């Protein structure tokens, strides 16, 4: 008769804004997957069940469980709070529906009402809280109509039936809590598991009684002896000796207990530090990655700001000359005007020349007239290359050449013939302005290139931001998991080494001194008991007393052994089951080929070690590896139960800690053990995808064992008061 959760709903609970109907997950028997990125509702699920079963939630700041009454304003949806007017109220709650067996379906609602007292939203004192009465409803499956359950005890039973208290620890596997829950380094933890699975308690009770009776039987014998006035000095001495040994034994056992306690504490501390050390290392690794990335981001942002500021400089910067866009016509006009100006200038000049020297019949220099250098040459060589004939000194041709020369020079030397000689004014403008007008064609491209550069810079900033956020998210999960303070790596190492030392000391003391001593005392006790027995045989007391003592003594010993056998038998069974699950879990990983071995410690606790195919112990502090081992044991505890396990599993599956190979095995394994599993994962989320899931997610979507799949969304870049979680049902 299994419990199957039919639906989980939230009302204004953390990021789940709105009524129950707006935030419902409909679930089925089999595997249900809920994909939620960090901050998109993963831990909220666990909090819902914590509230349901224990009226508690896990405070994300202190990492402590706190009573729902004290949780207050933090757990109410910010958006809902923001929309509540002063004087108005909102309700926050969780609702679970489940079916038990084939007849009934139940609905459990826990909620509270908060009335807003003033403008401040986040202040505790700005709200008044009233816990609402626990609401439990029941309906026949045939006739679906909920009727309230009134009896308080019955309500409690219904909640308990969802998952029996003793098994809750095996049904809620929230991330790193798995490690704490199944802490077999604590004797009590394994004992409790075995108790749940066997009748060992009965064996213990019987054994205890027999110990008691054995004592009583012995004292009865003694009493008889005394009344018989048996002057058996040897017997008395033997009894005294026996008592002395028993006392010593008790003392040594006490010492053993004390050393065991020291050992257990030291091991616990070491385990805690193991995690912290691993966390500290991982955190440092992430910090080392983050630091240069953050600097790079700052630099890129600065570069971007500067770039934006300078865009408008490009209008007037000669290298870009954007202002020149569209002035081609004007530039051409200027050149045209300049040419006209020069021509006209020349014309006016020569006109003036004619006015000044009317006798000179040299008017305008013909086009193609030779320059001064050529004329000089012609004069020297007494030959005109224009007409190609001689121009000897003294001839008119030669004089002609000379006059041309003088004209040329006087032209250049510039006897001013205008009031304002502006030729250079315009010429200089033309030359100087080149950087601007020569760029006209390329300005449009320049603008496009600038826009491209801007996009490029923005992209690289976004990429950096994404990368940084991803690393920061990882870093945050480590903090949450490791209960990490800002302890430096060195402190952790020192404490760690201290713990290791104490473990070693305690073990040595126990192994080398106390245990041998106890064994010796036990042997002495045995022999002295034999001695007492044989001395007894020659006494005159009625046989009944001796028989009584003997029988009880033997039974006591046998009961002790039987009890141990039950315990060991269960451990073996667990080992067997754990290995089956372990094989499944690591099926697609590189680790196949080894086995899990359960080893009993001196203090009664259990280590489970992984032995490779050659039988060598493999110690890996890799988080994923540890997690796998523990998952195997959890599932072994459940599957080793003779009856079928009838409760759902709610698990936070850290797929990333193992890699994809693990995931297939994981879903197969839990499918075999739990009638219903609700698995929360983040690693399947992919923002860029249309369905928001990655390749592995899509494969799982097609898997027949996966009955439902939801994806949680939180709006990107939303303000705190706008944060809501919406869920999309993919299957």
């Amino acid at each position, binding site marked *: 008769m299994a419990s199957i959760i039919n639906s989980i709903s939230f009302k204004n609970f953390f990021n789940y804004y709105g009524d129950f109907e707006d935030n419902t997950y409909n679930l089925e028997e089999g595997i249900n997957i809920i994909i939620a990125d960090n901050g998109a509702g993963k831990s909220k699920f666990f909090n819902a069940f914590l509230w349901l079963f224990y009226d508690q939630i896990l405070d994300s700041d202190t990492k402590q469980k706190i009573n729902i009454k004290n949780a207050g304003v933090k757990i109410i949806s910010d958006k809902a709070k923001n929309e509540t007017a002063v004087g108005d109220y909102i309700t926050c709650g969780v609702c679970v529906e489940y079916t038990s067996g084939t007849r009934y379906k139940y609905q459990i609602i826990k909620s509270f009402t908060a009335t807003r007292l003033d403008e401040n939203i986040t202040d505790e004192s700005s709200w008044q809280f009233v816990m609402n009465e626990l609401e439990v409803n029941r309906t026949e499956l045939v006739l679906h109509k909920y009727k309230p359950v009134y009896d308080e005890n019955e309500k409690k039973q219904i909640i308990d039936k969802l998952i029996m208290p003793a098994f809750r620890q095996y049904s809620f596997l929230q991330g790193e809590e798995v490690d704490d829950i199944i802490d077999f380094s604590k004797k009590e933890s394994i004992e409790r598991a075995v108790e749940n699975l066997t009748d060992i308690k009965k064996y213990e009770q019987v054994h205890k009684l027999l110990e008691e009776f054995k004592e009583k039987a012995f004292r009865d014998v003694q009493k008889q002896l005394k009344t018989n006035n048996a002057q058996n000095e040897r017997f008395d001495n033997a009894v005294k000796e026996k008592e002395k040994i028993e006392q010593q034994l008790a003392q040594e056992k006490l010492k053993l207990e004390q050393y065991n306690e020291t050992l257990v504490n030291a091991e616990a501390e070491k385990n805690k530090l193991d995690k912290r050390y691993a966390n500290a290392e991982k955190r440092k690794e992430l910090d080392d990655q983050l630091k240069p990335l953050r600097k790079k981001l700052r630099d890129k942002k600065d570069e971007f700001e500067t770039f934006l500021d300078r865009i408008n400089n490009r209008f007037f910067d*000669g290298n870009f000359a954007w*202002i020149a866009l569209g*002035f081609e016509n004007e530039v051409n006009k200027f050149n045209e005007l300049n040419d006209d100006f020069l021509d006209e200038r020349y014309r006016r000049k020569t006109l003036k020349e004619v006015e000044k020297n009317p006798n000179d019949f040299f008017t305008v220099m013909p086009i193609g007239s030779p320059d001064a250098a050529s004329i000089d040459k012609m004069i020297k060589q007494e030959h005109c290359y224009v007409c190609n004939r001689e121009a000897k000194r003294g001839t008119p041709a030669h004089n002609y050449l000379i006059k041309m020369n003088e004209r040329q020079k006087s032209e250049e030397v510039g006897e001013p013939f205008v009031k304002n000689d502006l030729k250079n*004014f*315009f010429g200089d403008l033309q030359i100087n*302005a080149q950087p601007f007008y020569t760029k006209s064609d390329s300005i449009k491209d320049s603008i496009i290139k600038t*826009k491209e550069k801007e996009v490029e810079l923005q992209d690289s900033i976004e990429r950096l931001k994404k990368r940084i956020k991803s690393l920061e998210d990882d870093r945050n999960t480590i903090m949450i998991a490791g209960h990490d303070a800002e302890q430096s790596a060195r402190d952790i190492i020192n404490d760690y080494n201290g713990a290791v030392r104490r473990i070693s000391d305690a073990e040595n003391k126990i192994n080398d001194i106390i245990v041998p001593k106890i064994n010796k005392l036990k042997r002495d006790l045995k022999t002295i008991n034999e001695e007492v027995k044989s001395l007894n045989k020659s006494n005159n007391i009625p046989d009944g007393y001796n028989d009584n003592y003997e029988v009880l003594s033997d039974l006591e010993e046998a009961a002790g052994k039987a009890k141990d056998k039950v315990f060991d038998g269960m451990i073996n069974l667990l080992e067997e089951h754990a290995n089956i699950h372990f094989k499944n879990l690591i099926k697609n990983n590189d680790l196949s080929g080894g086995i899990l071995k359960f080893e009993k410690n001196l203090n009664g606790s259990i280590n489970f070690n992984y032995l490779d195919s050659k039988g060598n112990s493999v110690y890996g502090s890799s988080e994923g590896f540890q997690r796998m081992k523990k998952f195997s044991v959890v599932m072994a505890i459940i599957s080793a139960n003779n009856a079928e396990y009838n409760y759902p599993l709610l698990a936070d599956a850290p797929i990333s800690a193992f890699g994809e190979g693990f995931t297939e095995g994981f879903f197969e394994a839990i499918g075999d053990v739990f009638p219903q599993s609700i698995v929360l994962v983040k690693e399947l989320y992919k923002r860029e995808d249309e369905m928001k899931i990655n390749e592995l997610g899509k494969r799982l979507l097609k898997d027949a064992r996966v009955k439902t799949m939801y994806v949680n969304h939180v709006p990107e870049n939303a303000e705190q008061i706008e944060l809501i979680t919406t869920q999309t049902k993919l299957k």
Partner: protein
Amino acid sequence: MTAQEFKITILLKRPRYAKSKIPVIEAFANKGQSKSEYSQFGPIYELYIYAFRLGLKKGLKLPLPPRNSTQDFIEIGKWKRDSSLVDFLLMIIFSKSEEIGFNWNDLEDMEEKELNVVVSNIVEFIESYANGGLQYLQEEWENDNLINSSYLFADLMNG
């Protein structure tokens, strides 16, 4: 007057803008200090030249109001001192000599007094188109037609 002197005469001029355009100038030129929500130029002359271009290209010639309603700013010669920006500007202006009302060759024969008049006309030409450009910018700004981005001014140039 030499070519140099002529140039200096122009460069010493301080163009004016209408006081009614002060809001738009403050919005779009930060003079290295204030920032508004819109894309900005730095010094006033940058915005002025841009507005001049805008006015010229759109044919928005708007003479300045009477002197009391106007204000001058830095002289042309100091507009981006070490660059040839002003030379380019003068090229454009002198290409419009017909509109402004003078002939290049005639300049060479003018007396100083006449040259000064030409220079004044040139300045008035600049002022009027700049004023028209600023007016256009102001209207678009007030009517919220401007799409603010880093390319605000580039986009306006295309329009």
